[in-house]
């Protein structure tokens, strides 16, 4: 029996190939085929294949993508009996009503160049208020899930709530020119083109380890996050294996492994962050509840309109 396991490429695939997959094979006896991709590709593939004959059994991707696919009927409500580890998850990881389980969290705060910035930021508002940042702010674009969160976050900060996007766009307008990136803000940060930007803690930790003078803060208004939601396909070709694998990913052992490798915040409450990792994984346990979450249905439904406004506003 073979399970197709979707994974990100590069270091992720490397790690999955060398460590995660063999461990799962050892535990389950099933072979693993790694399929490199991301939410966009898996989404496209699933839609092209149709609900009835999906090429995958399990998909782990950002909640933004997952919620859309869920609505189209690709996923099933998790059969918790086959997923014992679900019970140990933090509440943040269970926010989807049992339709998905968040397997990994990368909290996003504000990353900045310690050498190029005199006054270090404390809050998101500093992006507007610190003149040092002018023209050197990096933002994810709207295509990226973090970009969508930026909009919702700013709407919340400058307006009533996440739905008050007029306020959000007004704020973006006021921000002046920013350097937008579809992915990888690190390049800009490394070359000094960008001095401040939303950054997940894991990435800042990596950059720091590579010797770049950067740091990251937890903004006063709250954090956002990259999440990895595990979903099981309703018509999965290998449903049992998929559950087995999902349970495996959520197990404390694997969560700890991923934490060490990628500095993610583990979602299984049985994993404790050791002291030597505290600096790189600053958010864990109860702190995770402070991460802001969003009504993705709102975004998915208004996607076109919001994207267009973003394009017209952010320069």
């Amino acid at each position, binding site marked *: 029996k073979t399970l197709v396991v979707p994974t990100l490429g590069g270091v992720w695939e490397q790690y999955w190939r060398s460590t995660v997959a063999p461990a799962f094979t050892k535990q389950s006896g099933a072979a693993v085929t790694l399929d490199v991709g991301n939410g966009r590709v898996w989404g496209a593939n699933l839609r092209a294949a149709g609900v009835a004959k999906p090429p995958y059994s399990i998909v782990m991707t950002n909640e933004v993508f997952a919620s859309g696919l869920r609505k189209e009927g690709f996923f099933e409500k998790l059969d918790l009996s086959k997923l014992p580890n679900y019970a140990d998850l933090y509440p943040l990881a269970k926010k989807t009503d049992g339709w998905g389980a968040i397997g990994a969290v990368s909290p996003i705060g504000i990353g900045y160049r310690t050498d190029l910035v005199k006054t270090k930021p404390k809050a998101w508002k500093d992006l507007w208020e610190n003149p040092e940042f002018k023209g050197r702010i990096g933002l994810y674009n*709207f295509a990226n899930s973090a970009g969508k969160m930026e909009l919702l976050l700013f709407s919340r900060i400058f307006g009533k709530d996440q739905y008050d996007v007029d306020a959000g766009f007004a704020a973006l307008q006021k921000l002046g020119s920013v350097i937008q990136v579809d992915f990888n803000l690190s390049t800009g940060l490394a070359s000094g083109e960008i001095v401040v930007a939303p950054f997940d803690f894991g990435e800042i930790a990596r950059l720091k380890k590579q010797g770049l003078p950067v740091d990251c803060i937890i903004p006063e208004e709250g954090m956002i996050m990259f999440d990895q939601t595990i979903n099981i396909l309703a018509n999965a070709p290998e449903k049992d294996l998929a559950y087995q694998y999902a349970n495996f990913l959520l197990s404390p052992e694997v969560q700890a492994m991923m934490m060490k490798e990628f500095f993610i915040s583990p979602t299984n409450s049985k994993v404790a962050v050791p002291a030597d990792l505290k600096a790189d994984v600053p958010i864990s346990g109860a702190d995770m509840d402070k991460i802001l979450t969003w009504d993705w249905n709102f975004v998915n439904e208004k996607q076109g309109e919001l994207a267009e406004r973003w394009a017209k506003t952010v320069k």
Partner: protein
Amino acid sequence: MNAAAKKRFGPLLLIAPAAILLTVFLVLPYLNIVLMSVRMPGQGTPYGPGFTLANYGKFFADSFYIGQVVNTLWIGFVTTLACLVLGYPVAWQLARGNSAFRAVGYGLVLSPLLVGIVIRSYGWTILLGNNGLINRTLMGWGVIDGPLPLMYNALGIIIALVHVFLPFMILPIMSAIQGIDPSLEAAARSLGASKAKVFRRVTLPLSLPGIQAGCILVFVLSLSAYVTPSLIGGLRVKTMAVTVVDALIDTFQWPFGSAMALVLSATGAVAVVIFGRLTRMKWKA
């Protein structure tokens, strides 16, 4: 097949594989897309029920999008022109220059293509960024006070596009120049034409097939380029291709994205046809 049919249809066999390939794997799949472009926009789904022309209407009614078309065409035009002006001499040198250098020159010309787009953009950032090598050097020399805006604007996009598209201009022109009988240039000189005149009146027009090929290729590629504009342009400069990609895979508006894509492609096709007409070689059969 009998002899008569063979003679008549023989040439068609040459185009048959391409025709079949394009029909089966481009035309047929795109029927879906054409259909998609007249679907209702979806609410959190790829498309809604029912059909509409509103996707096109929305595009043509909004100066934001029309402006992007103009912008895209303009960038394509400038890039093509720059590639031609920069590439022609190199093509000439590769075609006619001494042989020792040729293989190396050929390799150098191809080299921009050998570096993946992301890495290449990184290279440009190092050079052109506000904090980049050029600006730092110039500021260091005191030539300028603040950084020159070389990146995150149309200029940066054009520089990067010209760089990577130059090979597509140079190679066809090089083959065309190789096909020119040097005795034609000799004849022109015997009639009193200076080197410059020989170039303008004989070499240049006879290399037109190469110029045409190169320009069309570069122009079309510039229109559909999206990684370079988004990386080098910092998404500040809006081009059609970027917007189309956004709409299609990032924000998931398939009907509107398809409509835009089809308009973009049609624009490109029209531009190619017009260019072909303008540069038609009457002396060819």
